């Protein structure tokens, strides 16, 4: 029973494609999978926009949108109609071709990131030998589109926002890739399917997820911080900070193109969360061995929703980082920690199983964290927060 529910969509696909001529089967199978991915993640994007606004509203002690539909959950439809029917204003001196291409390339790149994420058992669109490398290659294309958007608008604020965004993204790409390399080292393969299969085993009750090891936990935290910065989300959203620079690199976009940018950004966020789940949280594997009867894709989406909720929570809670603080953090803190994490992974691999390697690895990471943190604070200390209310 469990296996039938687990492989439900795979069998559905096989049956649907089996009724068609044999020559077309691979192309049609890929086509149907692509359409499924597009629709599922576009629907997730719609749901996330409402959840984010309601979540942020509740954190800020107000209601989110609650007029359209029950509890406001039909808000994305209203937003979609609005952005589709708004006038598409292009500035007179803007570079029309590049201005038009930027959101298209962004959305195209964001959608192709999902090709290597295993959403369930046997449910990956393209089992590439170098899946993780493909992911990072395509996400580096997204940086260039942000530059295209900012530069083609011929607007000082857009260009400044684009430059900041690119500097931030290339700075945080290094710890992101380094923390993924630790997982690749531990799993011995660049293929996402292999990495998840390595984590789908259990000793007793507990899973072999990489996040439950010291280097995996540190790596996961580094990955999450770098992913927040890569997606230009708070607290790293200086390039598009609403109160700072109008709207950053998409100031001059209106209507449908703005909606495409929004879509592209959220899709990038989901994709990078998906990669974090694949690399550290065990992909589609269940957290305990007695829960494996739940279908694998449900676990993947549950973890994805958990990570999205975490991102929304962080957005509503932490203040924005300044540009120099952001860059210092990336180069002076995260890069050394990521390199040390790499060494810790190697030490973990070569020590024998038992308490010793846990103690050694935890010590390595914690001591480095404390020393680095202290040296970067330049003597200032954190004090208890004092609230001043208006009388």
């Amino acid at each position, binding site marked *: 029973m469990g296996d039938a529910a687990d492989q439900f969509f795979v069998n559905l696909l096989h049956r649907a494609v089996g009724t068609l001529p044999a020559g077309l089967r691979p192309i049609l199978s890929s086509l149907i999978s692509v359409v499924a991915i597009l629709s599922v993640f576009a629907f997730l994007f719609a749901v996330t926009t409402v959840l984010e606004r309601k979540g942020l509203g509740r954190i800020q002690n107000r209601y989110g949108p609650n007029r359209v539909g029950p509890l406001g959950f039909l808000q994305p439809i209203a937003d979609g109609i609005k952005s589709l029917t708004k006038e598409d204003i292009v500035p007179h001196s803007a570079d029309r071709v*590049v201005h038009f291409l930027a959101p298209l390339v962004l959305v195209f790149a964001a959608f192709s990131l999902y090709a290597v994420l295993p959403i369930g058992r046997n449910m990956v669109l393209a089992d*590439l*030998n*170098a899946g993780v*490398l*493909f992911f*990072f*290659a*395509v996400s*580096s*294309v997204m*940086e*260039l589109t942000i*530059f*295209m958007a900012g*530069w083609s608008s011929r607007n000082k604020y857009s*260009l400044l926002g684009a*430059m900041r965004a*690119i500097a931030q993204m*290339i700075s945080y*790409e290094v710890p992101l890739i380094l923390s993924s390399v630790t997982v690749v080292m531990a799993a*011995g*393969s*660049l*293929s996402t399917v292999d990495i998840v299969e390595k984590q789908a085993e259990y000793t007793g009750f507990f899973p072999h997820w990489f996040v439950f090891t010291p280097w995996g936990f540190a790596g996961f935290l580094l990955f999450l911080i770098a992913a927040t910065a890569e997606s230009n989300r708070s607290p790293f959203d200086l390039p598009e900070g609403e109160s700072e620079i109008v709207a950053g690199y998409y100031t001059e976009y209106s209507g449908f193109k703005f909606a495409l940018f929004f879509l592209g950004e959220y899709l990038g966020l989901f994709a990078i969360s998906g990669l974090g789940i694949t690399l550290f949280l065990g992909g589609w594997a269940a957290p305990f061995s007695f829960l494996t009867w739940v279908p694998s894709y449900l676990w993947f989406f549950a973890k994805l929703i958990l990570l999205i909720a975490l991102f929304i929570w962080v957005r509503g809670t932490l203040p924005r980082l300044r540009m120099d603080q952001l860059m210092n953090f990336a180069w002076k803190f995260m890069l050394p920690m990521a390199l040390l994490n790499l060494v810790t992974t190697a030490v973990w691999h070569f020590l024998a199983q038992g308490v010793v390697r846990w103690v050694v690895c935890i010590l390595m990471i914690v001591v480095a964290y404390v020393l680095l943190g202290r040296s970067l604070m330049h003597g200032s200390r954190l004090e208890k927060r004092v609230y001043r209310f208006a009388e």
Partner: protein
Amino acid sequence: MLFSIFAILTVAGAVAAMSFRNLVHSVLALTFAFAGLAAIYLLLGAQFVGLAQILVYVGAVAILIVFAVLLTRDDGTAPRSILSSSWKESAVVVLLVFGVLAWTISRSLVFGQGGGSLPRDVSMQEIGNALMQRFALPLEIVGALLTVAMIGAVTIAVNEKEERR
């Protein structure tokens, strides 16, 4: 056939990159040419190299060139020609070079062979093994070279405001 399409796109991107007046357009056309080359590498079965080409060239070198273009902007005051002062001699040299290369290719034995499919796909483990065993020394040298280049680039381009007091 797919190869011809990507080849034409790559050459078109390269020619466009060399002939645009606006430098940013030129860089974007160059990026297009790089992407075309990456597609050709993937067609030839070199997966790692194709993806590394996108990651390094499109994701880093193109952005680097774009930053340099924006930092060295001419305000476009004098509408000069885009060609340098010695362009006629250069054109002759280029045609000579291309002639020699094309003649060599057409006269070599290469015209009769090549064109089979790869016996098997190259796995990442093989590349990793090669990098760690047979090519370990080049790997370390390239690492040292990249470090030196990074330090050198920062030293050359750093804005030395502290000296002019």
